């Protein structure tokens, strides 16, 4: 006799809602005429995300390790992370809705008549919305997954759509496609590592659940554990862009359509760090002597590498890619801290950083010339004069990245570093502040280019954003500002929600 698996639908409803939205989106693609698709798709996306958020709010105090049999653990931190993903997705979807950035017909060969026609017809590749929703659903599942198989599936569910989305840039399509290929190949490669590691963890503990792995501590073959931890880590470190698994980041950030880059940079980090935190805090907490030194070293290398290489960048998206690598290093300090403080700090940091990142990429979409976005920093010269408000917002965002006080970035850094210090990892703090100093250099250089250098005769202009983009950028920027001035709003929440149940 088969017993139906116990599912607590209310707890997994947020994920289901988004998945449902995605499926409806697919149906819309199939059945609705081209002319109406875009509007409907946007509505569906926003609607499902709002619904999911509302559901998350309703279950905010609930928790269970058996939300979906033993595969999904809904707990405070999980809900916080899911909410973060949904909020970031909501902000990002408005940017993505600005179809100007996306290819008219993905299958058309760049430069072909087919492409020209599709451009003239103003056709749109509205599949991006269901793809986007699938990715969001995967990202929501990733940090709450509590066994290896769910982790793997979630990883793939959010990665596969992103691979595709990365290749959908309207302009410079060769680069975009290249970035999709690289992202895909390397992503699949890292998944293989993850899976192989998962296999060994299973071999080590005899179970695929994180709590089971934790319970098996010290019981059996250490080699299996070692290989398992390392390979699973490789998969996760790849997703967060930690050195030396970062190589995809600059290329993909640069090649992908800018709104996707923004979404990816923000939300992927949240999901991947969420999972990383859960795995290390719940699954590997007992083996901390094994991995903490390791992650410390990786964090240090990542912080320094990201900051140093970013100095030498000439492309604003690439620069932000390296900056995100550096930030991954900072965030890893929170993982190493392995404490409630570390978790609080990480939650805060992820939310604040995510919003700021989306705002940053949102602003990048506005700087254009006749052939589209201008990401060459040398051509950003003097845009402070052309559009002080936009440049000013970007400057604020950069200062936030740099961690100047009165920005959310500063509070995040302070929280992360103090948690690391509290756990005795003073080296992380020292390297962290040093690389922050290095990092400040390139953020400030951009500000100089925007404000202190006279514009040369250049066709670069700052376009007036569409309403959707405007809302997105303004919301993200304003929340960043508020979080800088009144971080308690989020910190208190993060403190309340910083709890993994085991």
């Amino acid at each position: 006799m088969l017993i139906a698996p116990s599912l607590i639908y209310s707890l997994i409803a947020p994920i289901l809602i988004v998945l449902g939205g995605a499926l409806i989106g697919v149906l819309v693609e199939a059945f609705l005429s081209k002319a109406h698709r875009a509007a409907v798709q946007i509505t569906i996306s926003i609607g499902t995300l709002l619904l999911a958020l509302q559901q998350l709010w309703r279950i905010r105090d609930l928790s269970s390790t058996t939300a979906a049999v033993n595969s999904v653990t809904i707990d405070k931190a999980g809900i916080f992370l899911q909410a973060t993903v949904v909020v970031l997705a909501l902000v990002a979807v408005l940017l993505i809705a600005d179809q100007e950035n996306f290819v008219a017909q993905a299958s058309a060969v760049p430069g072909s008549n087919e492409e020209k026609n599709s451009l003239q017809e103003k056709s749109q590749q509205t599949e991006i919305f269901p793809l986007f929703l699938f990715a969001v659903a995967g990202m929501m599942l990733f940090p709450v997954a509590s066994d290896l198989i769910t982790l793997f599936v979630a990883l793939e569910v959010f990665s596969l759509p992103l691979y595709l989305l990365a290749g959908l840039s309207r302009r410079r399509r060769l680069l975009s496609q290249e970035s999709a290929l690289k992202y895909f190949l390397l992503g699949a490669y890292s998944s293989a590592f993850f899976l192989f590691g998962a296999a060994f963890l299973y071999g080590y503990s005899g179970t695929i659940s994180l709590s089971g792995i934790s319970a098996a501590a010290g019981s059996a073959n250490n080699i299996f554990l070692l290989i398992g931890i390392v390979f699973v880590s490789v998969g996760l470190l790849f997703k967060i862009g930690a050195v030396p698994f970062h190589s995809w980041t600059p290329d993909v950030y640069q090649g992908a359509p800018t709104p996707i880059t923004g979404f990816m940079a923000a939300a992927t980090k949240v999901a991947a760090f969420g999972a990383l935190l859960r795995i290390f805090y719940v699954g590997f907490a007992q083996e901390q002597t094994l991995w903490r030194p390791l992650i410390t070293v990786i964090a240090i290398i990542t912080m320094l590498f990201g900051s140093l290489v970013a100095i030498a960048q000439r492309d604003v998206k690439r620069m932000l890619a390296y900056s995100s690598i550096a930030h991954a290093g900072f965030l890893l300090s929170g993982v190493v801290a392995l404490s409630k403080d570390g978790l609080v700090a990480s939650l805060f940091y992820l939310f604040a950083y995510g919003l700021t990142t989306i705002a940053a990429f949102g602003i990048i979409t506005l700087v254009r010339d006749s052939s589209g976005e201008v990401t060459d920093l040398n051509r950003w010269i003097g845009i402070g004069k052309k559009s002080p408000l936009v440049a000013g917002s970007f400057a604020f965002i950069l200062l936030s990245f740099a961690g100047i006080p009165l920005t959310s970035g500063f509070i995040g850094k302070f929280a992360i570093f103090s948690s690391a210090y509290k756990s005795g990892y003073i080296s992380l703090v020292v390297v962290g502040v040093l690389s922050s100093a290095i990092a400040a250099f390139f953020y400030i250089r951009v500000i100089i280019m925007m404000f202190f250098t006279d514009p040369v005769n250049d066709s670069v202009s700052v376009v007036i954003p569409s309403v959707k983009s405007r809302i997105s950028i303004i919301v993200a920027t304003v929340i960043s500002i508020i979080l800088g001035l009144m971080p308690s709003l989020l910190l208190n929440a993060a403190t309340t929600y910083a709890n993994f149940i085991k």
Partner: protein
Amino acid sequence: MQTSANLVWLIALPLFSSAILLLAGKRANSWGHVMATIVSASAFTIGFVEFIAMQSRADENRAVAQKLFTWISVGSFNVDASLLLDQLSICFVLLITGVGTLIHIYSIAYMSHDLDRRRFFAYLNLFIAAMLLLVLGDSYLNLYVGWEGVGLASYLLIGFWNQKPAYATAAKKAFVANRVGDVGLSLAIMIAFATFGDVSFAGIKEHVEHASSTQLTAIGLMLLLAACGKSAQFPLQSWLGDAMAGPTPVSALIHAATMVTAGVYLITRSNFIFDEAPIAQLMVLIVGGITLLFGAIIGTAKDDIKKALAASTMSQIGYMILATGLGPIGYAFAIMHLLTHGFFKASMFLGAGSVMHGMKDEVNMRKYGGIGKFMPITALTFGLGYLAIIGVPPFAGFYSKDKIIETAFNAGGMKGLALGIATLLGAMITAFYMTRVVILTFFGNERWGHKDEPHESPALMLIPIGLLSIGSIASGFILSKGEGLVHWLEPVVNPLKEHHDEFLPPIVVSLMTLTVVAIGILIAVSKYRGDQLAQAPENVSVLTKAARRDLFQDDLNESVFMHPGQTLVRNILNIDYLVLDGLVRAVGSVSLTAGSRLRSLQNGYVRSYALLMIIGALALIAAIWVVTA
């Protein structure tokens, strides 16, 4: 101690007057000089009234004090702005305001053609205020304010015609040299505070016997350094000659009669320290002895009448400093010489100014000659000053200088002999160079080489000179009568604690002095009798050449301090740019280079990215292996 509310006005009047003149600007051009002179005269009146009042009191009650306000008070460091007028300071007050007023009057005429006369009087008043503060301050710190104040006034006045770069440089030189001395004064104050916890004269005097001689010697030497700076004593004397760039009344007032004697005041005021610090006292003697000869030798070679007089001043102050080094009995004689010198030197400077006035500001004595007949009054007064300085009885210098020479001999032993001979030698050279000045200026052939005959100066200039001349005649006699000044100063300097045997009877010393003076005069007369050339002779002895160059003090300063200093500055500039700033820039460029190098890892090939991942994974495994094993 008695108090008096008048003291502050001594300082405040000229200070305010100075401020008013400076702030009022051109509006005060018409009446500024009058007000300044009246203020100076009022100060003299106040001083005189205080002097009369002081005389009427018993010895121990003569000093009066006035506390103005608490100036600096931090922890145990408490300094009030208070004034002290005692027997010593009243001498100075009268000298400063008296001579000062005369020179104010003189300047009205002397500066009448200068567009900036108002500013000149403002500076003069500022000087009077600062100098009075210097002598009235009841603590070293108050004195220090006046001390630097007179330095400032001196700087402003030397550079009064600073549109000439050389004059501006001279002013700066004077200030800097004085500052070197000021370092001494401030260090002395610091040591005094560290030692006594007090910087007032009375406070230190009270506890001086408990202090170790090391500390007292240190304080004494530092005070001596200060005195050297202000009083143009060796080795800080080089600024005085250049200071003659200022208008002549300034030279008379500041660089002859008053300010440059501040060092003598300082040492006399600090008698309680020097009396307990024999090494410092010896150094005072050495400095005084060297300078009196140094100045005299320089004086023999100078053709610039003002520089010759300046060298003479240096030399005469050397006498005074030497006298202060002689211990208790010497202080009074130093002050006496200071006062008489104030009269005769001021009168001679003003006379020189009068000559310049009549000679279109020519200062080179080689271009004078035979002026006596054109400017009889000037010549007469100058002559009286001349007789006073070389020490011909009964003129003022005779009394004061003779006493110093006598006391020097009485110092006893080899020291006494050396000092005595030095002072005698100085007297001879003084006679020589002063005779030379008089002959070159007032006698002999007319060498000015233009048709305009010199003319006598206006009465406004001559009257002050005349009054000062009376001083050069009579002051010596008056002050020494019944050892008046010595007894007057006794409460301040505690003289005659010990009594030296007389090395020689006074009359013998006087005769010796007169003899060497006569020799000096004779040499000068024989050398400069007859017609002289309008140019200085070129083929002269090494000593003359050296004296013309101020005995190479400037060259020494330049080669020991200035040039190495300039090199140092250049090197530090380079070090700052290349090393310190270079390091900062290097941090930047190293980061940039590192960034660019690391950037090449990102070569665009997926396969190499994958390789990097494998390497990373293997490195992680290896690392864990190492950690666990």
